[in-house]
């Protein structure tokens, strides 16, 4: 049975196609200004690269913040999708942390993979990928380099502000006082990790902990988060696809 999971994120659209639980194809596209169009584009890409089109699918399900825009398909909530995907990747997972561009989410799941609690941060930029992006541009460092750079940090400085706007001015002050860039990069990741951990504490931290979403591509953040949580954080291979994968599995009735 061929099914597809579509995750319409604020920044990117992710599609995963599975056949009896096995991943057959995946694609990531920018969400753009028109979600319907971008979604169509994503499918066109899938067709070119893998030869699948929507008509081949036995079932398509959507999730993600923009899911309401794709009117044709049935939906699952983000927390359910993320939990399903994470659990399928690793059955010992009890806490899933998802950090995307504009949302952060902490999900607690039981031994059966069922969601028992979740918390979201969608209002404050300081708990999301957008925070890192904004700070990276203040530093004048490309986003992809910020993580590796922070690993070179030798001393610990802290951004105190929770609000991204204040954080920005703190960073400017740091630049003026010639703090080394790696230390500032680390401070940025620590700040985000601090916010994320507060959110995770709401649902409680139970091991194993898995981190998913695009921001888990940032190794600097992963390190800071692990230190703050005082435990190991599992990052799967394609962290941004986990929710789409979970959605595809749900579509397959798995």
């Amino acid at each position, binding site marked *: 049975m061929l099914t597809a999971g579509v995750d319409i994120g604020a920044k990117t659209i992710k599609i995963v196609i599975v056949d009896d639980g096995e991943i057959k194809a995946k694609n990531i596209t920018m969400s753009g200004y028109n979600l319907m169009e971008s979604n169509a584009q994503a499918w066109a890409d899938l067709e070119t690269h893998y030869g699948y089109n929507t008509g081949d699918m036995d079932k398509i399900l959507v999730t993600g913040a923009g899911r309401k825009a794709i009117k044709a398909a049935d939906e699952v909530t983000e927390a359910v999708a993320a939990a399903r995907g994470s659990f399928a990747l690793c059955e010992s997972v009890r806490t899933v942390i998802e950090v995307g561009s504009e949302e952060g989410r902490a999900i607690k799941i039981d031994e059966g993979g069922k969601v028992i609690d979740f918390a979201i941060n969608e209002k404050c930029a300081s708990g999301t990928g957008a925070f890192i992006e904004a700070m990276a541009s203040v530093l004048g460092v490309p986003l992809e380099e910020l993580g590796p750079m922070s690993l070179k940090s030798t001393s610990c400085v*802290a951004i*105190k*502000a*929770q*609000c991204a706007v*204040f954080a920005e*001015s*703190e960073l400017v*002050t740091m630049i003026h006082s010639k703090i080394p860039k790696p230390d500032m990069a680390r401070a940025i990741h620590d700040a985000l990790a*601090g916010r994320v*951990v*507060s*959110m995770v*504490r*709401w649902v409680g931290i139970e091991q194993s902990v898995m981190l998913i979403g695009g921001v888990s591509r940032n190794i600097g953040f992963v390190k800071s988060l692990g230190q*703050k949580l005082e435990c190991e954080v599992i990052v799967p291979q394609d962290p941004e696809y986990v929710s789409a994968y979970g959605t595809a599995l749900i579509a397959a009735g798995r």
Partner: protein
Amino acid sequence: MIKELFRKSDVFPNDSVTVWKDQGKKVIGFMCSYFPEEVIHAAGMLPFRIRGGSCTRTNCSDAVMSNYSCSFARSCLELAMNGTYGFLDGLIGQDSCSQMERLYDNWRFRTRLPFMHLLHLPYKNSDAGIEWYRHEISVLIESLEKAFQVTVTNENLARAIEVYNETRMLLRSLYELRRNENPPLTGAQSQSIILAATSMPREEYNELLRAALREIRSGEPIRDIRARLMVVGSSIDDPTFIKIIEDQGGLVVTDALCFGGRYFWEPVDNQGDPLLALAGAYLSRPKCPRMMNEHIPLFEFITDMVQNYKVDGIIFQKMKFCNFWGGESLFLEKKLKEFRIPFLSIEREQDLTNAAQIATRVEAFIEMIEGAI
């Protein structure tokens, strides 16, 4: 000596507390300037006022108390949760404000101390209220006696009042020095000295303070003061805030803060029933907006200060989510305008994340007072 006092205020528990504990004696935490510390002293224990100090990261307490709580309360809880307050043998909670009450709730549920007691503080200063508070204090004494196998006698209480009255007198003379045209100490220094009072054995403190006063008197007076300022508002338990103000060229010469002038202003009448004296004196002490019927006296306390200390401008700071001081704005700001004293109203948080903005405002405020340019 004065350096010694700064040190005692800066770290906690400081060495005096450690020495005290090493002697096998007990330390009891309390939460509000309306708490009659004499009672703990009379029981042979050390009262220690809870504060958040320079605690800036509140990751644990944010999660349990939420972002809608006053960050002073959150910082205190953080320190409780991370073990900093492990040296306490007991804690006395008070409904001084609901954030403090909830701090006590969270504390009880998360890290139990051997002795925990909630003391109800009247919201009104009246005869009935004093009678009520007297009873509350006597109940507290009973449970202290039971829990720690001690007896609190009237003599002990009278003795404690005497010791504390001495502090009050000494601190008054410290404030007296700040009235000078060129005071010999800054507002930040003065606050450190008061903070030390709430965190070490009182006899030792009085001695240090007496010596420090001599030092201060012979010290170098501060010149080039751009403006004489007064700070009012929510509790400030760390001199950093005052320092930010003074770094802009103003000198804080007095305040109406509960870790400041309001802490010690009036002595306790040491005659007759000590419990009644304590209840009466504490309830009538310089006002906090939590007292429902004392907003006018609070305003008068401030204006008296303005006159006696030749204050040029008032800095009215409100901790975010502090309802009492935030709400007080309605009346106080109107009255201050009528009184024609310049004031600057600012919102802040414990971690002073907006320090740079505060500094700009204060600087502009000083420029406004100077008016010369």
